[in-house]
């Protein structure tokens, strides 16, 4: 596995992380190292073994359809970097 600079730039863009050109090679090397390490897993032969989806054997727990939560606007908005009245606010986004 070898990660190129263009892919590194694209990953950064998708993750909304701004990278200067000078930083790019450094990040590329580090990510490449991580991916290479994880890639060792593909040396294991898993032919015919069903994918493991979790460490628990139970299926997904389900809850009943009742309203038990919400009504905590002030608490939620207290953590907002920007707000106005009952709303969060963000820089204007119009498509």
């Amino acid at each position, binding site marked *: 596995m070898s990660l190129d600079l263009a892919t590194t730039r694209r990953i950064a863009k998708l993750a909304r992380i701004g990278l200067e050109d000078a930083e790019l090679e450094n990040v590329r090397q580090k990510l490449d190292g991580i991916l290479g390490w994880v890639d060792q897993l593909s040396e294991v032969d898993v032919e015919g073994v069903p994918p493991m989806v979790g460490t628990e054997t139970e299926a997904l727990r*389900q809850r009943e*359809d009742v309203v038990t939560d*919400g009504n*905590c*606007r002030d608490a*939620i908005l207290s953590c907002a970097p920007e707000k*106005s009245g009952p709303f969060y606010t963000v820089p204007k986004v119009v498509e």
Partner: protein
Amino acid sequence: MSYVIEGKTGSWEIVVGLEVHAQIVSNSKLFSGASTTFGAEPNSQVSLVDAAFPGMLPVINKECVAQAVRTGLGLNARINLESRFDRKNYFYADLPQGYQISQFAHPIVGEGTIEIELSSGEIRKIGITRLHMEQDAGKLIHDQDPTKSMVDLNRAGVALMEIVSEPDIREPEEAGAYLRKLRQILRYLGTCDGNMEEGSMRADVNVSVRKAGEPFRTRCEIKNVNSIRFVMQAIEAEAARQVEIWESGGEVDQETRLFDAARGETRTMRSKEDAHDYRYFPDPDLLPLVIEQEWVDALKAALPELPDAKRARFQSDYGIPFYDAGVLVAEQAVADFYETVAKGRDGKLAVSWVTGDLFAALNRTSKTIETSPVSAEALGKMLDLIADGTINGKIAKEVFEDMVETGEGPDAIVEKKGLRQVTDTGVIDAAIESVMASNADKVAEYRSGKDKLFGFFVGLVMKETKGKANPALVNEALKSKLDA
């Protein structure tokens, strides 16, 4: 007759597939216990899960799963007993998690079909590719501040079903018929209210064009079209745009577009370079969703009668034509109304009153079947009065109009206005004699062979009895007196 676009280089056909987002009817959200009620105070129905606070874990709502399964069953589709949730990653201000929990590789519902009916009466099958569950996003409000957008997360996390059709649609009209039929099924099932104005049902439209016999060409996706009429207009506009590009030697780019209803055209929403790379991966917070066949069977056993089945039953139980049955089952409330009127009575007479006089009255008074000034029971009682000879068909119209106006029962109106049908042959004979006496010339004409005048005499006798005479008795007595 199929839809073609005549271009400079020949005829083009259109290829359309629809992705419908339908909000699931439930009390609480897909993965949190916050309420789903529409129109609440901004951000009042938001839990820490919906606002994506660190460490919050999603727990699935069993009823939302049941609703998705019911919908799958209503679409004659395969139910997958094991399905999974994935994260669809993208950044947008209405999506606090930075990803939408959706089902990508393993949806809960697989292939199905919908039968649609075109205005020509032709029936077509449209394939369903899949149905999966996912979270809705919040809402952005742009018009309250010149530099800021307001974020309301009440809708964030509400359960959606995304219902994807095969690219089987070849005409704008078919797309309209498909959406109407899908909405009808969802409403019958009670799994989505189908309200496009409030956004609880929205459509993404995939359109491409090709020459007959060709493989598919590049398609464009028109996002978030919010009415059936706009879907049909958007398809026409987009298909015409693509034909023009191909014919002028260009290439259609695969892209996401918006439909501008005011201008009747589509325009680019996201260019190709920004095309989304969602980097789907299995959501590590959620184990696979496993449901039991017995549970699915129980849900199936409890499904309401769906429109196609109801239509067939109305035809056979009440002896009414396929077309009329279709009009009645279009809305469940109308079907229920009709059935109350028709049960144990003349089904054909019932359908003519419901789709004729009643619909006209609702239209005129701007009422709906739910707020009808005449109840199904009252209309049924009026049909009984016709059946037992208390009133004739003509007087029934008068009684009905009175019922619409006053909301009174038919019995009371007949008594109050003295509309009881005249079956007293003495009264009828007297009316006939009076008519014959004052129209001696016409009687002579009739007797000399102009028997078309019979209807003229019937009319006068009915007038003389203020429309209340029993028409059969009038006919009989008139005939014997004129022929005497």
